[in-house]
């Protein structure tokens, strides 16, 4: 393959692995280190900011409206309002409700034995089973579960807003991490490709000079072609071209001198002497080699 046919291609991007990879790895390493350290700092700050934001959201107070409505299922599931349950009381209109005239209902007690009054804060703890014993008939009745206190529409919306704000704060934190990770990966890949491509513009001319040097070593003085567009080391390559031309000029001078000297020596009576004849024969071979090396 001639030097002129050599074109940029992804296959031969790594012409000088040691030089190219060293610079590319340095570039990528610096970028990755910066990205890692600053990214870790950014994540730490984002975590703190999220904590502050969530605290501020939780600190919001929802004021109930006057209009009482049934609680929405979403709000009840996501953020159950803390409602102090009333003491165990007869259910209004219940079919088996205790008679108001009867003595206070007892929990877990039978007959006239003294019993402790129902705990008014029982609703906030583990739910207890309450039974009412009707003394007249000695039947045990289980009252229906205590209904939660009515929640206003405004309060429900406010609670929903709080829940969604908390979720948004978490999502924003996750989004920051995701963006940082993706940016880091893209940066590393992009810089690797850019580094290899950039160093290739230095390694390319060196590779080309190396090919010409190998020819010089073998004694072939081919024509030196220009670099490709975009290559670096243009000045260095010009130096090489001048050096190559300088060596070719030396060879041409030798050829001219040898031609003249050999012509004169062969025509001279001294040519009959064996040492002169041997020297002439050796120089004829030298001249032939030099002439051959300059062809092309």
């Amino acid at each position, binding site marked *: 393959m001639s030097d002129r046919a050599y074109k940029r291609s992804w296959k031969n991007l790594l012409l000088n692995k040691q030089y190219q990879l060293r610079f590319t790895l340095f570039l990528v390493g610096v970028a990755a280190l910066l990205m890692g350290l600053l990214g870790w*700092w950014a994540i730490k700050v984002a975590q703190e900011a999220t904590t502050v934001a969530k605290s501020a959201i939780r*600190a919001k107070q929802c004021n109930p409206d006057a209009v009482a409505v049934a609680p929405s299922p979403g709000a009840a599931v996501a953020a159950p309002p803390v409602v102090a349950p009333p003491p165990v009381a007869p259910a209004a209109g219940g079919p088996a409700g205790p008679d108001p005239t009867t003595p206070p209902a007892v929990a877990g007690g039978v007959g006239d034995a003294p019993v402790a009054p129902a705990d008014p804060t029982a609703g906030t703890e583990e739910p207890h089973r309450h039974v009412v014993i009707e003394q007249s008939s000695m039947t045990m009745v289980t009252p229906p579960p205590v209904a939660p206190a009515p929640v206003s529409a405004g309060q429900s919306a406010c609670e929903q807003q709080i829940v969604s704000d908390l979720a948004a704060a978490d999502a924003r934190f996750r989004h920051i991490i995701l963006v940082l990770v993706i940016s880091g990966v893209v940066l590393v890949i992009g810089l690797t490709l850019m580094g290899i491509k950039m160093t290739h513009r230095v390694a390319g001319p060196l590779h080309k000079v190396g090919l010409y040097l190998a020819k010089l070593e073998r004694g072939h003085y081919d024509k030196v072609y220009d670099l490709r567009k975009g290559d670096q080391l243009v000045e260095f390559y010009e130096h090489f071209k001048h050096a190559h031309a300088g060596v070719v000029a030396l060879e041409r001078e030798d050829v001219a001198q040898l031609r003249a*000297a050999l012509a004169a*020596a062969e025509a001279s009576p001294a040519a009959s002497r064996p040492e002169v004849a041997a020297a002439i024969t050796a120089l004829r071979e030298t001249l032939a080699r030099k002439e051959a090396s300059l062809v092309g």
Partner: protein
Amino acid sequence: MSVDPSKPTERGVPAAVVVTDGKVPGDVPPRGDSGKRPSSRRDRRLANYLLDKRLQLRYVLLVTIVSAIIAATLGYLIYDLEHGASDKLRAGLAELAGTDASLVEYGDEFAADIAGRDRALVFQMIAIGLGITVILSGYLVAMTHKVAGPLYKVGIYLEQMAEGRLGPTTPLRKGDMLQDFYVQFQEAHGAVRARLHADTEAMATLVEAWTVELGSPDAAARAALAAHVEARRRALA
């Protein structure tokens, strides 16, 4: 009289190497008079590090710009997050304070403290950015010098070759890059030099064997060849 350290003396012992200005003779080949010479010792040191400004500064600028972009983007993100959190804290405290004078005063102090921390963060990031830039630039100049150095040295030999001079070459310094390329150059340079040397000696053999009488027609041709041999010997010395 200058002595070529690469050539052994008559007794077969290599000649003594004289170290001048911290350099072994031939470490960096002498440049022609056309080359720019630094004016002072300090300039010379700086010039020695920036041998190929275009090549070296390109890398320095690339790495510095990439680092600056990363630092600026993430720095802004950090500042934005920190500032946003500070605003939320200030707002929360103001809401909590309401009309309570003592709490309002405390809130003002707290806000001033937070603002101070935010400013300190900005200065901290600017200082880190500048520090990174200076350290990276210095390191990269030194790193690229290990590439520019061999290219500079080869460039000087190439200049000499262009002038028809093919003297001996010396190896690169320890730690220099492009060692493979330099060895390739040395081999080619050595091969050309050896070939020209052998050809010169073959011509010298003819000159010695070809004895002519003064005034004979061959005398001019022999004299021309002898002069050529001398010139070539000087070029290869």
